[in-house]
Structure formats: structure tokens, C-alpha cells
């Protein structure tokens, strides 16, 4: 067997475009997914049983069905409701819904780990529930589950390859196209796998740097909460 990468590397522009979309999908849905996930974690810990119930149904439904099926449900669901969103928009919606459910469980564990005395201290100082979540609980909760969050959002970036199935032109879609043109599937997917690997490592670095910025206490003292 001889490996020949020339035809693939000649299509670097296509790979770059795919990579750019993958990065965009990952970046946008990390933010939207974190937002949805955190709100659902709060809903799941709420005193209002209807909120708890809605959040639980959402979380369990997503965590117990395959992502590919979820994408199709969103894709065909939206179009049968008469919406005509672009493949990228549908991909963002589906990825957000998916990662939001996993993030909700991670953040819930983080909030649950906050000592009751912390909530009470916030309450006694006159902070509202929302203010206590925002000022007292959010950052320590995030800090505690930060390794899990990092892994989850890297998984999300990798899972974005599935959106090639609804022809979002991200990295895997680019690979599919290139291998059909070059008849060099093995080399194509090796190259793409290496790009994904590099992207995962880059995300780890970004998350590490972001962690330094949001957890100044850890930066200064070097200790975990």
C-alpha cells in the first residue's frame, strides 16, 4: 500500500473552510450550550415543580437518544413546521440542544456541591436567589466541574462532525467530498483525524487559559476549591 497525500493537500482550501465552520460551530454552541445547560441546572434545582419537571424531561430525552437522530428530528421537524433554516443554523440548534442537556447535569453537580452555608450566607446578606446564583454559586460550581465541562465541550466539537449528515459544510463534510473526488479515503480521513486531534488540543489550551482568567483565586494560590 502506498500513501499519497498530494491530491488531498492540494485541496487545502476546502479543508480550511471546513475547519473554519467546525471552529465556529464549536465556539457558538459552547456558549449557547453552557447558557442553556446552566439555566436547566437551575431549573432542575428550583422549588417550582413544573420547572423541575420540564428540565428533567428535556435532559433525559436528550441523554437517552442518539445525536444523529436528534439532528434529523430538528432538521425535519423545523422544515415540516414551515421553517427553512440553513444547514448551519439547524446544526447550531441541534448541537445546543444536545450539549445543553449534558452541561445541565454537570452544572447541577457543581451547584449541589456548594455548601449550604454559602447559600445561606448569600440569603442573610439580602441577596436574591438569582444574585446568589450569579455572585456566590456560579464560579465555585464551575471551578469544581471545570474538567468535566472541558471534556464535554471537546466532545461537542467532535460531535459536530455528525452535522455533515444534514450537509453542514464543516470539516467532515469537506473530507467526505474530498475523498469522493480523489478516491483516497484513507489518506483523507487520516488528515482530517489529525486536524480534529489538533483542534481538541487547542481547545484544551483555550479552556485552560479561560480558567486562569475566570478563577483568579486559583491563579494566585494554585489550589483547588
Amino acid at each position, binding site marked *: 500500500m502506498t500513501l499519497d497525500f498530494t491530491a488531498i493537500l492540494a485541496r487545502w482550501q476546502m479543508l480550511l473552510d471546513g475547519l473554519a465552520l467546525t471552529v465556529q460551530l464549536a465556539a457558538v454552541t459552547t456558549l449557547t450550550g453552557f447558557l442553556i445547560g446552566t439555566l436547566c441546572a437551575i431549573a432542575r434545582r428550583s422549588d417550582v415543580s413544573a420547572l423541575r419537571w420540564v428540565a428533567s424531561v428535556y435532559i433525559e430525552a436528550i441523554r437517552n437518544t442518539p445525536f444523529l437522530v436528534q439532528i434529523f428530528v430538528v432538521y425535519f421537524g423545523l422544515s415540516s413546521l414551515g421553517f427553512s433554516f440553513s444547514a448551519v443554523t439547524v446544526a447550531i440548534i441541534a448541537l445546543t440542544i444536545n450539549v445543553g442537556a449534558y452541561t445541565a447535569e454537570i452544572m447541577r453537580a457543581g451547584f449541589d456541591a456548594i*455548601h449550604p452555608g454559602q447559600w*445561606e*450566607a448569600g*440569603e442573610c*446578606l*439580602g*441577596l436574591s436567589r438569582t444574585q446568589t446564583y450569579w455572585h*456566590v454559586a456560579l464560579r465555585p460550581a464551575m471551578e469544581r466541574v471545570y474538567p468535566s465541562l472541558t471534556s464535554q465541550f471537546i466532545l461537542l466539537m467532535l460531535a459536530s462532525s455528525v452535522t455533515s449528515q444534514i450537509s453542514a459544510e464543516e470539516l467532515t463534510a469537506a473530507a467526505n467530498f474530498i475523498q469522493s473526488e480523489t478516491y483516497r479515503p484513507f489518506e483523507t480521513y487520516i488528515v482530517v483525524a489529525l486536524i480534529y486531534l489538533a483542534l481538541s488540543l487547542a481547545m484544551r489550551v483555550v479552556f485552560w487559559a479561560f480558567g486562569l482568567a475566570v478563577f483568579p*483565586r486559583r491563579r*494566585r494560590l494554585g489550589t483547588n476549591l
Partner: protein
Amino acid sequence: MSVVVLKNVKKSFGSLPVLHGVSFAVAKGEVLALIGASGSGKSTALRCIDRLEIVDSGEIEVCGHMVHDPGLDLRRLRLDVGIVFQSYNLFPHLTIKENVTLAPRSVKKLDRRAADEIAMQSLQKVGLAEKADNYPEQLSGGQQQRAAIARSLAMEPKVMLFDEVTSALDPKLTGEVLKVIEALAASGMTMIMVTHEMGFARRVADQVVFMHEGLVHEAGSADILTNPSTPELREFVSNDL
């Protein structure tokens, strides 16, 4: 005029009755020491005053707020009441100064400069101004407890509640915290303190309330610690010596 009044307060946890009808009152500027064996209901009484527990029956009035009333404006009650616990409960991710400015900024909506000023004043009162930029874990237990007191003081409460604030500290650190509380008492702050420090209670308290099995068993001036009239208080005081 009384700042805090409890009238026949009853409270159970499930089927466990804890307060059987507790009554006492604290006048403005007065220091009340709440003493009694562990499990006698001191913390529960204190927590009822700040509405951390809801009474089953009876009345609690704090600075004009009807605490037993379900329609109570919790936020305004909490503006008037400061409470400090045995376990400091400082926010670990915030510096001491950020701990102290958090409530003035987000509850009272003060701007950064005004909040910083108040924070530094309260930290000075507890002798911690130079620790403002440290994190709680960098402080000793006594310093953390003083920081917690400063955090409460920064909200300028009308009454302060202390629940065994020195019980987790060794004698030396206990001394530095008690000194802060004593200075606070001298400045005219109305206070209720649950304490096991009998010498301190004798020195600082205007009124001593001895709780026994969920009831006020004996109450009076600090003299009752020297001359108890009930056998229960006599035994409690002698155990402590």
C-alpha cells in the same frame, strides 16, 4: 423600645418539638447573651429571628418587621439584621474585600467607590484592613471570623446575631474575635449572641437568657451567672467552669 421581641415562639422540626414557647426582648443598644446546653434550641431561636426558619406559632418582631407574618418583606428584614455563624461562610472565590463589598454593591446598589469605602471602614473595625486583598483560605480562623463580621457590618444592620462564633477557634483566636464583638457592643450595637464563653457573657451582656429544653428557663442580668436561682442553670454554669 425593643428592637427584637419574641412572644411565645413555638417551632418543631417534623415531629420533634424544639421551641416550646420562647419569649424574650432586646432593647436598642442592648447585648443579650443566649446560653444553654447543646440542643436546647438556641440556634433555632436565632435562625427564627432572621427568618431562616419559619415559626409554627407565636410572634417575632424585629425592627418593626413582623417576622412571623407570611407576607413579610424578607429583603428589608435582612437589611436590618446581620448574622454570623460558627462556620464563617466566607465566599472562597472572592477576596476579603470582595466578600465585604458584594452585598453593599448588589443589594444596596452602591457604586464601587462607595462600597470600597464602607468595606475598608468595616475591615478596619475588625483589624483586617491589610488583609483586604487576600483570599479567605489565606487567613487564620480568627481572621476569617472577623472578616465575616466585617461583611455583616458593611450592610449597617440595626441588630447583629452571633451563633457561637468562637466555638471553632482556639483560645488565642477566640480572644481576638471577642475583642471585636466587645468593641461593637461598646459602640452601641444591639446584639444577640449565642455563646459558651461565660466570662465574656458576664462582662459584656446586659441580659442573659438561659434556655433549657426549648424554653427560657431563667433570665435576668449577667448576675444570674454568678447567682443562679434554678438548679439547671447552677449546674450549667458549674459545668462550664
